[in-house]
């Protein structure tokens, strides 16, 4: 299992994944860093500089928007890393001689899954840390619970990784990737339906949203990350308002049981994927 994990890691390195991801992320952080730096120095229509309080409140909203986009990026990256990692090796025949070695298929699968999970988590935490440090340097703003938020974003990525791995045991890489991203979007829409259902007291929409989150808890993890990024003042303002919060705000984190469900979901889906891989013919 360790040999397979190390090989997967080496593959990412030799295929310049790390270099490419580092360059793209550095560019992203540089652009957003410049944006926040500029934000702290803009003037209002009256020609007066924005106050520190205004910078902090604008930064809070922008951090949520950037995190939302990062959540999508991480989910798509997890899918497009995981699906080809297994499906391409199956399709190309690279796995054939490996599978005839005295190592169980579950160990081969686990090696790949663990390496991918470590890469996704490291990427999420390194990017999150760099981004938050840059934002703090530019504006002085720090979200309430950045580490927890990145943790939940990572879990959302791992949910998508597990799903893509499961599908790629039986589907071509491209098909598994497209289906995974499609389901991610459906879960996002389900979550929006849930928040609308709660707001308008509509049981059908609420239950449909809850069901979609149970079936694919990627968005529930985004909601948890979101709650950890919102300053208390923002939560209080939204709670006092009677307007619909929309997909970028939440007034409460998902219930505690949802975290347990999401963690269990990742383990169970990965176990199903391992079993599917172990039982198939090549």
């Amino acid at each position: 299992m360790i040999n397979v994990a190390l090989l997967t890691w080496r593959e990412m390195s030799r295929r310049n994944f790390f270099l490419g991801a580092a360059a793209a992320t550095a560019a992203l952080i540089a652009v957003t860093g410049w944006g926040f730096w500029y934000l702290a120095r803009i003037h209002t229509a009256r020609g007066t500089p924005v106050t520190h309080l205004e910078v902090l409140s604008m930064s809070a909203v922008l951090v949520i928007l950037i995190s939302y986009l990062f959540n999508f990026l991480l989910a798509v990256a997890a899918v497009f890393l995981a699906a080809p990692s297994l499906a391409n090796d199956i399709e190309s025949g690279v796995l054939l001689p490996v599978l005839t070695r005295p190592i169980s298929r579950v160990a081969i699968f686990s090696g790949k899954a663990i390496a991918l999970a470590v890469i996704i988590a490291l990427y999420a935490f390194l990017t999150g840390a760099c981004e938050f440090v840059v934002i703090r340097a530019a504006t002085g703003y720090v979200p309430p619970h950045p580490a927890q938020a990145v943790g939940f974003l990572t879990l959302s990525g791992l949910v998508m990784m597990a799903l893509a791995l499961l599908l790629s045991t039986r589907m071509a890489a491209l098909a598994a990737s497209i289906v995974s991203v499609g389901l991610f979007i459906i879960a996002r829409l389900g979550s929006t339906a849930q928040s609308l259902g709660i707001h308008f007291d509509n049981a059908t929409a609420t239950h449909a949203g809850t069901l979609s989150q149970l079936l694919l808890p990627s968005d529930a993890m985004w909601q948890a990350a979101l709650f950890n990024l919102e300053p208390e003042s923002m939560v209080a303002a939204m709670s006092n308002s009677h307007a619909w919060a929309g997909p970028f705000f939440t007034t409460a984190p998902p219930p505690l049981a949802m975290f347990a469900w999401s963690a269990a979901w990742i383990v169970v889906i990965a176990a199903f994927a391992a079993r599917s891989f172990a039982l198939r013919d090549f």
Partner: protein
Amino acid sequence: MDCASVDVHRLTKRYGRIEALRDLTLRIDKGEIFGFLGPNGAGKTTSVKMLVGLARPTTGSGNVLGFPLGDRRARLHLGYLPELFRYPEWLTAREVLRYHAHLARMHGIEGEIARALERVGLAARSNDRVATFSKGMQQRLGLAVALLGKPELVVLDEPTSALDPSGRLEVREILRELRRAGTCVFLNSHLLTEVEQVCDRVAIVTRGRVVAHGTIAQILGEGHGVRIRASANGTPLDRILARFGRVEVQADGATVQGLAQDGIPAVVAALVEAGAAVYGVEQLTATLEERFLEMTAERGS
């Protein structure tokens, strides 16, 4: 003690409604080179995949190296070169072998790798990435992977399909070395002359069924006729020879179809008795290619 490397009984494999293989029964002993022949889609690769544990039989059972089909313990002593050989292009040849050596829990890994590379003629390119290899070199690398760690059973699926004539010659020599070392080789090949030159026994499979198996001599049969160069002196040759088989008269003699080697003295005696002048007698034997085409055509029709 059972000395069979492969011993399988009535293996059948179905993919949905398609029956890829039916009732494959084989026994291959240690130190034997076994050829597995058949046209495209006959079920050869399916058979190979079941032997090495890549596919499960729908019905049937068997042992490989003394362990049930699919048992991981057998894979400690198994080498396999797939028909569609692909290795990670971003690794060097040495790294590919090292990876497999680790997976196979070998000891003295670097020595094993050096020996395998030397054996297949890749020692000079050992530190080059697979991406820079020609198809033939990748097949050599695949062979090196299969030969790592002195396996007791080597399963080769079309091992020379990408090699030039000198490469094929080298592979034949490697196969003979393996036989001398007591290794069992299961050779799946389209190249009948190659099989004829190195295999101790062969099986011919077509449309998912084994239609013949045995030694090369058994497959070829005792001969399917006798060619006689002779001139008649009175009684025509076809009348003299009619009782021995189907006669085809030619300008310089005749061919008697269906006549075995032990019938030749009687034929010669009959010709001499009838006053014919006999200049030469030659037994006609089929090539493996002819027998293969006959058998696969029979099943096909």
